[in-house]
């Protein structure tokens, strides 16, 4: 190994971007093809500096667009290297075509997505529009709530994605600015611990294996396309969760930090539960604790894995809850909201009589305040007391003007 190792303190003060860049450095990626976009730029910028300073042995490819960035990653992954990049928002949207190529070609690429709103109107702040845009692309999607998660989930993403039984690309999501630019204490792994957790990259069907020539990215029509997609869906549905659980368990042994496919905070005995993602989970937890002091049995369910969607885990976790609120931080544009729909699907056909209501919040970086959540939990308790949903099924939180609701 010709590169230098970095001595890290046990706890470093890092924002989510730098935490992701450090995790990428410790994983020793062969190729990063990247194009800058706010708020994810510091990830690849940080990585490029590590490379320039000889902390990494690899290639940094500067490209002309995010479409080219992911295309470069696909080529490098097909060639047989450990590959990663980062993007946000419009860049992510430009990548979408190639996201489907990466997953269909079963290439284990790790993409750090720093969640940001989608234009128009142009907006650099965090919401989950880009994350939602990727949810049918066949990638595994992990969600970080804070810089520590962004650091840890990168190792887990490489570990799961590169497994030969999985071979599906993975996104690690963090909230733009709220996580990406907010410095917090991050407990570190040593370079050796981090690298050994992900291990040496094991190529599969790599194009640089000249003794076994392969053609990547072939065409199939109605004769074979469906089988390939069925296989991909099957592997997402049946193979990924066991590998994620194993990786979470291994990571807990290494670091003492425990992750779960769905993160339950006071859910088991709760009457009212808020389901949300990203930084909102931490705010909701704080408010739920305050609600408990007021006698409302409140809980919070955070999704750690968005795709594959934890259908069964959510159904089990929410089975005895009386009223549930789903918090979607993306404009549903004519529908009820992703979390509302998926969770309704998880609970339908089960014995639960839980009341389900949906909320749209935080678009373009609009704050979700503790006051909002206090009102929300109070509304849920009112639903429980009334035995029915007393509000419209879809309400907007924190938007100007007269109260906005639908359904």
């Amino acid at each position, binding site marked *: 190994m010709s590169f230098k190792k970095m001595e890290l303190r046990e706890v470093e003060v890092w924002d989510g971007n730098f935490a992701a860049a450090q995790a990428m450095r410790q994983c020793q990626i062969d190729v990063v093809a990247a194009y800058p976009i706010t708020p994810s730029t510091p990830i690849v910028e940080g990585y490029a500096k590590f490379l320039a300073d000889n902390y990494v042995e690899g290639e940094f490819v500067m490209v002309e667009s995010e479409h080219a960035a992911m295309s470069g990653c696909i080529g490098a992954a097909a060639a047989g290297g450990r590959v990663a990049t980062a993007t946000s928002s419009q860049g992510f949207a430009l990548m979408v075509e190639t996201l489907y190529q990466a997953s*269909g*070609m*079963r*290439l284990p690429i790790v993409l750090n997505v720093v969640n940001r709103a989608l234009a128009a109107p142009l907006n650099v702040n965090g919401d989950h529009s880009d994350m939602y845009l990727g949810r049918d692309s066949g990638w595994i999607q992990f969600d970080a709530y804070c810089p520590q998660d962004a650091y840890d989930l990168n190792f887990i993403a490489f570990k799961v994605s590169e497994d030969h039984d999985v*071979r599906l690309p993975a996104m690690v999501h963090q909230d733009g600015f709220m996580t990406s630019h907010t410095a917090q204490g991050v407990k570190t792994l040593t370079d050796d611990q981090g690298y050994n957790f992900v291990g040496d990259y094991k190529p599969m*069907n790599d194009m640089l294996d000249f*003794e*076994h*020539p*392969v*053609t*990547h*990215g*072939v065409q*199939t029509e109605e004769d074979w396309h*469906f*089988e*390939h997609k*069925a*296989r*991909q869906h*099957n*592997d997402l549905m049946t193979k990924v969760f066991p590998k994620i659980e194993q990786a979470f368990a291994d990571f807990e042994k290494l670091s003492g930090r425990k992750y779960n496919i769905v993160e339950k905070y006071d859910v088991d005995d709760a009457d009212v539960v808020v389901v949300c993602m990203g930084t909102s989970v931490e705010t909701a937890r704080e408010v739920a604790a305050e609600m408990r002091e007021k006698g409302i049995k409140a809980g919070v369910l955070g999704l750690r894995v968005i795709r594959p969607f934890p259908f069964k885990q959510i159904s089990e976790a929410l089975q005895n809850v009386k009223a549930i609120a789903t918090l979607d931080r993306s404009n549903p544009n004519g529908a009820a909201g992703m979390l509302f729909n998926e969770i309704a699907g998880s609970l339908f056909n089960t014995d639960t009589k839980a009341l389900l209501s949906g909320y749209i919040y935080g678009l373009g970086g609009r704050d979700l305040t503790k006051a909002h959540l206090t009102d929300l939990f109070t509304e849920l308790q009112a639903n429980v007391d009334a035995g029915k949903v007393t509000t419209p099924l879809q309400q907007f939180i924190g938007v100007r003007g007269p109260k906005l609701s639908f359904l």
Partner: protein
Amino acid sequence: MANTGWDEFEIGAMLRSFDGKIDDIAGTLQEDRAYSQSNSFVASVADWRIEKPVFNKDFCIDCQFCWVYCPDISIISRDKKMIGIDMDHCKGCGICVEVCPTNPKSLLMFPEHADEEAELTNWPAKDEEK
């Protein structure tokens, strides 16, 4: 392959060119290569043709022009001797006929259903004008 189930093929939009490990592929003749079932070499595209080239070895000077110009590697040549045409992969483009320098030409295009023996018997004579 028609009976292969959705869970029986290798993952990824990926196909292997050869069965097993290959060694000196450039030094191995096509007929000796272990092409995989998914290699396009094993698929016949003969039905793409409307016209076919017929080779008359009596006039061939083994100049290799047809071998050089064929866009589908369908001219079979061994030790710089023209042997014939790979009729599973020839698409009937006629380039080999176009570049053939002999008089009369050693390759001529005929309708796909033409009888090769009959056409060879009736091969045009040398064009004295040339």
